[in-house]
């Protein structure tokens, strides 16, 4: 009985945990509850993925009302995979969060942070799992509002403006999505994704559907921080509490990118998205320019968190490149990078959390010489950074490998070359940090810096090990991504 109800529990458990965290009104207890629920959600998502892999798409009618009259959850390879990423990253970063948050946030606000965290998780999982477009909007708003809150909880006043800017742009994006949904509804009379995909075919040459497509694309792209709609992201990541940055880097934009996949490939079929609307002609150049501009901007940052923020924008570009290649291989690469990038960025932000915990800042010049004092932290940064660059035996390499294969499949060796060159830019900004960490004498030698405590290091290294493990054993990630890609491309073979 339980196994049949897993889709509902996946979202409802964190949803229940949110208010309870508030009621507990105690930093440690709220944390404990949030962590427990996160791990539970992670196991549920594992079970869901297992169910999907063994017996195909799961359809779950909420309230017992079958779609399109009610709202349904529809779990297939793609969102089962994303659910796994989201809940997994949340579980690990929460394990990390306790000390880090206690250091960075005022005590009386901690339980509010975990309430927000649970709500954010609810929102993200809800967006991912649902098969109803309006439901996407509702949960998107849950996730967004709680993100604004989480970002603004940091002590740094700049986090307020970052959150505000995110709020304005995020709301514009959400409203665009709302308009898109309205236009689709006008033409089809339904809100269910599966139903939509069937009914759009009949009206796909209408100007209304095309406009709906554009509005949805722009709205979601804003949320996903696809270049050039990324302006909110770097500051939001830079000034949020470290654990929150790690959570967002691993989940928030990933879910939005997932939505892009979902809309471009499921709701609208790929033929419409790419042949009729010629989306790839626009997306590919934009993504490429985004990769380069964001990477170069990252090189010039003095705040390492901000640098990683720009790097995220660049990495999202890779996912979009994979998507706009419109082939099984390309989509595989995109989905794979979704997973892999979640791992590496979460890892790097968590490492920065360790740094901030000890030296109180993530500015480059303050990090000079910590390689000796904090060998484990610094080592984690090196491995995570190399993963970002795409060095073999890390997840980053596997992503690049597939992306380049997909480019070559089109015969676009120039694209392959550009992707590789851009990863050299990543090398530059990562190496700037490594050099300062190891080979620059500390700016203030008298200051005693200790290694981060084990409670921070263990989750950090868990993520780092995952970066290496999934860079070596790719059967799970590549296997699922490939199946998902086939499903999206409508290639049943």
């Amino acid at each position, binding site marked *: 009985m339980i196994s049949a109800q897993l889709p509902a529990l996946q979202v409802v458990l964190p949803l229940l945990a949110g208010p309870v965290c508030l009621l507990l009104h105690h930093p440690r207890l709220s944390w404990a509850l949030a962590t427990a629920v996160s791990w539970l959600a992670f196991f549920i998502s594992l079970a869901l993925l297992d169910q999907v892999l063994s017996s195909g798409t799961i359809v779950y009618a909420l309230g017992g009302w079958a779609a399109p009259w009610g709202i349904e959850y529809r779990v297939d390879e793609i969102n089962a995979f994303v659910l796994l990423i989201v809940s997994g990253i949340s579980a690990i970063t929460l394990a990390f969060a306790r000390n880090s948050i206690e250091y960075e946030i005022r005590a009386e606000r901690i339980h509010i942070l975990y309430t927000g965290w649970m709500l954010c998780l609810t929102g993200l999982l809800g967006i991912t799992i649902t098969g109803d477009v309006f439901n996407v909007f509702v949960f998107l708003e849950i996730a967004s509002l709680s993100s604004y809150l989480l970002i603004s909880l940091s002590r740094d006043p700049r986090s307020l403006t970052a959150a505000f800017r995110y709020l304005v742009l995020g709301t514009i994006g959400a409203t665009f999505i709302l308009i898109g949904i309205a236009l689709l509804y006008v033409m089809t009379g339904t809100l269910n994704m599966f139903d939509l995909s069937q009914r759009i075919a009949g009206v796909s040459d209408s100007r209304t559907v095309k406009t709906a497509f554009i509005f949805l694309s722009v709205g979601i792209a804003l949320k996903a921080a696809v270049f050039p709609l990324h302006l909110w992201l770097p500051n939001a990541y830079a000034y949020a509490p470290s654990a929150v940055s790690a959570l967002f880097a691993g989940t928030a934009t990933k879910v939005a990118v997932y939505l892009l996949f979902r809309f471009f490939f499921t709701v609208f079929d790929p033929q419409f998205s790419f042949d009729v609307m010629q989306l790839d002609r626009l997306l590919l150049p934009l993504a490429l320019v985004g990769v380069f501009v964001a990477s170069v901007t990252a090189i010039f940052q003095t705040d390492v968190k901000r640098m990683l923020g720009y790097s995220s924008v660049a990495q999202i570009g890779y996912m979009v490149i994979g998507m706009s290649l419109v082939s099984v291989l390309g989509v595989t690469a995109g989905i794979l990078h979704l997973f892999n990038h979640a791992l590496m960025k979460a890892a790097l932000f968590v490492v920065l959390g360790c740094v901030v915990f000890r030296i109180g800042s993530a500015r480059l010049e303050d990090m000079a010489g910590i390689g000796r004092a904090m060998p484990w932290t610094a080592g984690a940064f090196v491995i995570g950074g*190399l993963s970002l*660059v*795409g*060095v*073999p*035996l890390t997840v980053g390499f*596997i992503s*690049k*490998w*597939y992306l*380049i*294969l997909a480019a*070559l*499949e089109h015969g676009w*060796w120039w694209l*392959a*070359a550009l992707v*590789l*060159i851009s*990863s*050299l830019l990543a*090398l*530059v900004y990562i*190496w700037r940090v490594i*050099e300062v960490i*190891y*080979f620059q*004498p500390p700016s203030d030698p008298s200051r005693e810096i200790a290694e981060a405590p084990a409670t921070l290091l263990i989750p950090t290294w868990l993520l780092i090990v995952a970066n290496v493990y999934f860079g*070596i*054993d*790719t*059967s799970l990630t*590549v296997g699922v991504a490939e199946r998902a890609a086939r499903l999206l491309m409508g290639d049943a073979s």
Partner: protein
Amino acid sequence: MSPEFATALAVFLPLFGAVGIALLDRHPNPRETVTLVTATALFLVVCSVAPAVYRGDEPAVHFLELVPHLSLALRVEPLGLLFALIASGLWIVTSVYSIGYMRGNNESHQTRFYVCFAVALSATMGVAFAANMLTLFIFYEVLTLSTYPLVAHKGTDEAKRGGRVYLGLLLSTSIGFLLLAMIWTWFSAGTLDFVNGGILRDTLDPSLLPLMLALYLFGIGKAALMPFHRWLPAAMVAPTPVSALLHAVAVVKAGVFSVAKVTIYIFGIDFLRDAEATTFMMWIAAFTLIAASLVAMTKDNLKARLAYSTVSQLAYITLGAMLVNTTALIGAGMHIATHAFGKITLFFCAGAIYLATHKTEISDMNGLGRAMPFTYGAMLIGALSIIGLPPLGGVWSKWYLAIGSLEAGQWAMLSVLFISSLLNIAYLLPIPIRGFFGQSSDRGETNAVREAPLPAVIALTFSALGCLVLFFFPGPLYRLMALVFAGQ
């Protein structure tokens, strides 16, 4: 010990050593013992694989599959064995030398130094034994990364700058070109395994061949083809043992070794010859050969001169590979060995001089030979071997390279080889000559000079003897190289 086990062990042994070294951080004597024991054990392990290879076996180890049909795997073939033997053998010598050097010079961060050294050796073994291009690539990158801390060892601004050039060039060429070439190959051929006769013959459009070849050859930045050679002189900021083993043997030879591997096992020499795709790269190699020699002549800094000499000598090997015939490739393979002995000797000498006098410029070294006879004697032997004069090992490799270029009908290349040998004489011989016969400006100071610490002297004597031995017993070397082509 089965050859398969020994093969795997060869890669892991230095890593175990590295852990041991790290654990003994605060105890220099046991720490250095670990280094020496590991080095010796590694050499013995590699030797234990040799009989099987001479019999024609190819011991193979499969670790795991990274992407479907793409594995981390090892397979020992003759060329790889040759490279592994040289690198592991010379590691022992270098370890002895480094103990003298690092202590004599009071270097800091010695534990980090030995750990990285051991990791680099592990990577070198991986490169040597790799069964496919991906495995090779992975170890190649590990080698780059593990040697970076050695290059930037001193932590001064100059060292950091050198390190940046080193890492930047090696990683950008390997990621920008080599990885692209690899993925392209995989995309065309569906495999990256090293197969006799190559894997691209039926799968790659011959008109694209020169492009692919260029991607590979420039991508293997460690082979230091111009214009991607700048990292090698930059790496000379490292302590001398690093320059000696890594930048005269392990790292650079990993480069040209990869070039040879790619030529033989990825493209296949027949395919390359039939498609006449190598002309362009051959001229690039020839240009590098001459140009680097000319630059070497202008350098007064001893290590810089040796570095450019290395660039030039590496081009010999690449040139040999690009001549695409058996004889030239045998010559190229043997040059990996003979140059290794010659150049490591020269670097040992440079380090010994620095230890004894803290001098780095050739023009300051007048008359030192009389105070340091062992060092200068070894230097003379090393120089003559590299020039290619009997009775030293360098003769043989140049001999086969020359024959190879004749076989290929490349008279131009033959003359390049000769001109370059003359240039070698011009920039190498003056160093020992100044040492023995030059008049020092400051006689009192020169008289006070003594030989470098004993471990250093032992090491350089030993490697100089190696040059001699190679002249009289080139047989095993030749047989090993001939085995490479026996199957084809």
